[in-house]
């Protein structure tokens, strides 16, 4: 219970720090009044706009106000609509392709990493080579070429488009290729990570002990997977920021109205409240997810509890 409270406290403190950071950075980089009125505006008009927006108040007060409103999830307004509402709306399309892609990549990487770590030999070399090749290919190249080959050339998928409430079969078709490309972007590093993890786990003494007692390889694998659950969850939690932002390139090329597209549009229109809102909202989702993963690890892995109490 104390661990839970402490973890939540750390999460809240991190969120406060994030919102303060975002405020400081945005305030140092850009002046909202100048952005709204243009660089050539008269100084009097700029001062009036600053007073209207409340930008002429003391720095510290504005900072504290900003942190306070971020902590209560009031991220301001953009285009006569709360930023939170726009974020929620954009989240659904992003998760629609990012979540299946994430799951696909994780399953492939876990299976491939486990097989590579256990068999070694040519399978290991092949998968390692594949992972290195995927990692070396910038996500821009992967998405551009993937869309060209699979959609334009082979015509396996529709080129782009996003169903705005069409039939469910059609929606699925549009999600498939973005999800696949998303999985490919993520697969390279994950494959290598899980391979290294399973090589470490396989070298643990208890695996030797299980084998010496004559357990079948399948049973040994089950023990092994349970032991590796903590590090796997830690990896998933490290992946969370990418999951909620999605891939800006994928959303750009496939015309998906997700969080990445929202961010890009906000930046191009220099819509500061929306940019701040996206940054803080995504950070909040990440921090919350990471806290959840930590708690899950404590719950599932007695070793992590022991390590904590021993400290």
């Amino acid at each position, binding site marked *: 219970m104390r661990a839970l409270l402490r973890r939540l406290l750390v999460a809240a403190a991190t969120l406060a*720090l994030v919102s303060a950071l975002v405020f400081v950075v945005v305030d140092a*980089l850009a002046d909202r009044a100048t952005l709204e009125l243009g660089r050539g505006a008269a100084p009097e008009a700029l001062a009036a706009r600053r007073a209207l927006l409340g930008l002429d108040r003391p720095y510290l007060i504005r900072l504290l106000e900003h942190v306070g409103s971020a902590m209560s999830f009031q991220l301001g307004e953009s285009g006569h609509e709360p930023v939170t509402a726009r974020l929620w709306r954009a989240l659904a399309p992003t998760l629609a392709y990012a979540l299946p892609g994430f799951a696909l990549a994780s399953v492939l990487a876990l299976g491939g990493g486990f097989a590579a770590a256990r068999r070694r030999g040519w399978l290991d070399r092949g998968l390692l080579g594949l992972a290195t090749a995927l990692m070396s290919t*910038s996500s821009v190249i992967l998405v551009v070429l993937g869309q060209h080959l699979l959609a334009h050339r082979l015509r396996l998928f529709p080129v782009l488009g996003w169903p705005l409430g069409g039939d469910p079969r059609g929606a699925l078709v549009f999600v498939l290729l973005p999800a696949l490309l998303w999985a490919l972007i993520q697969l390279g590093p994950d494959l290598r990570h899980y391979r*290294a993890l399973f090589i470490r786990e396989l070298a643990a003494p208890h695996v030797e002990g299980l084998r010496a007692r004559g357990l079948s390889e399948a049973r040994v694998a089950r023990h092994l997977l349970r032991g590796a659950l903590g590090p796997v969850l830690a990896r998933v939690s490290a992946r969370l*920021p990418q999951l909620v932002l999605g891939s800006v390139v994928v959303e750009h090329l496939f015309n998906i109205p997700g969080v990445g597209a929202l961010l890009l549009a906000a930046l191009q229109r220099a819509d500061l409240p929306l940019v701040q809102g996206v*940054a803080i909202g995504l*950070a909040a989702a990440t921090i919350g997810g990471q806290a959840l993963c930590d708690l899950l690890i404590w719950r599932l892995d007695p070793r992590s509890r022991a390590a904590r109490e021993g400290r």
Partner: protein
Amino acid sequence: MTPRLGLAGRLALAGLLAFGALALGAALGLYAQDYAGAAGPELLSPGPGAWLGTDALGRDLLARAIQGARVSLAVGGGAALGIVALGGLLGALAGLRGGWTDRLLAGLTDAVAAVPPLVILLGAALLLAPGIDTAILAIALTQWSGVFRGVRAEALRLRASDYDRAALAMGAGIWHRLRWHLLPRLRPVLATALVLSFVHAVKVEALLAYFGASAQTLPSWGRLLAESGSELARGIWWPTAAASVPLALLVLCAQVLADRLGEGEPGG
């Protein structure tokens, strides 16, 4: 203690040096200077005259690809140095000082790592004047948390060692411990981190350039990719190839080198 690079590592190093020489020559003005003006008819396929063909405005793609190497190497190298310097110094400070310094810096790192990096990257690049220095600054200021964690862990391990305690007992200051105790220990880790940061920075630069947030006058590979998108759908492949093949090759070389350097480390 030089790590054994092996054949693949040496080839990768040679490839990186070749890219460096190519970019240096272009920066000194020896070749590939006519990257901005039309060199021939539009969308000429690769052949003698224009070895990689020309793009939709008739510009020579070979010259543009070579100039792109300048951008990628400058941003990659500059940002990698910045990441390692910033992450390394803060990590060493946190690990060697311990206590509240450590807690505050670790908290700051968690906060920086929680903001999706692309928000800050694209934000800084598009709101400020986009350019090579902005890209270097934005990448270095947002991507240092990995190096910080590695160096901090190593510094914490050093704090538990007897020779560091002896140095402390003799009144050694933090700079002395950093210079004579931590740095020699960290050298292999930092070398790997430098190359890995380079890989990361080059990839991020390509992404930034794709959205027009990197170098403005020089062509960079990410921008070439963005420009070639519409032609690719019509079956004109050479602009895309001219941008993506060197980009993938450069990252592959650096990645293989980083793997070779990090061979001896646990988990590498």
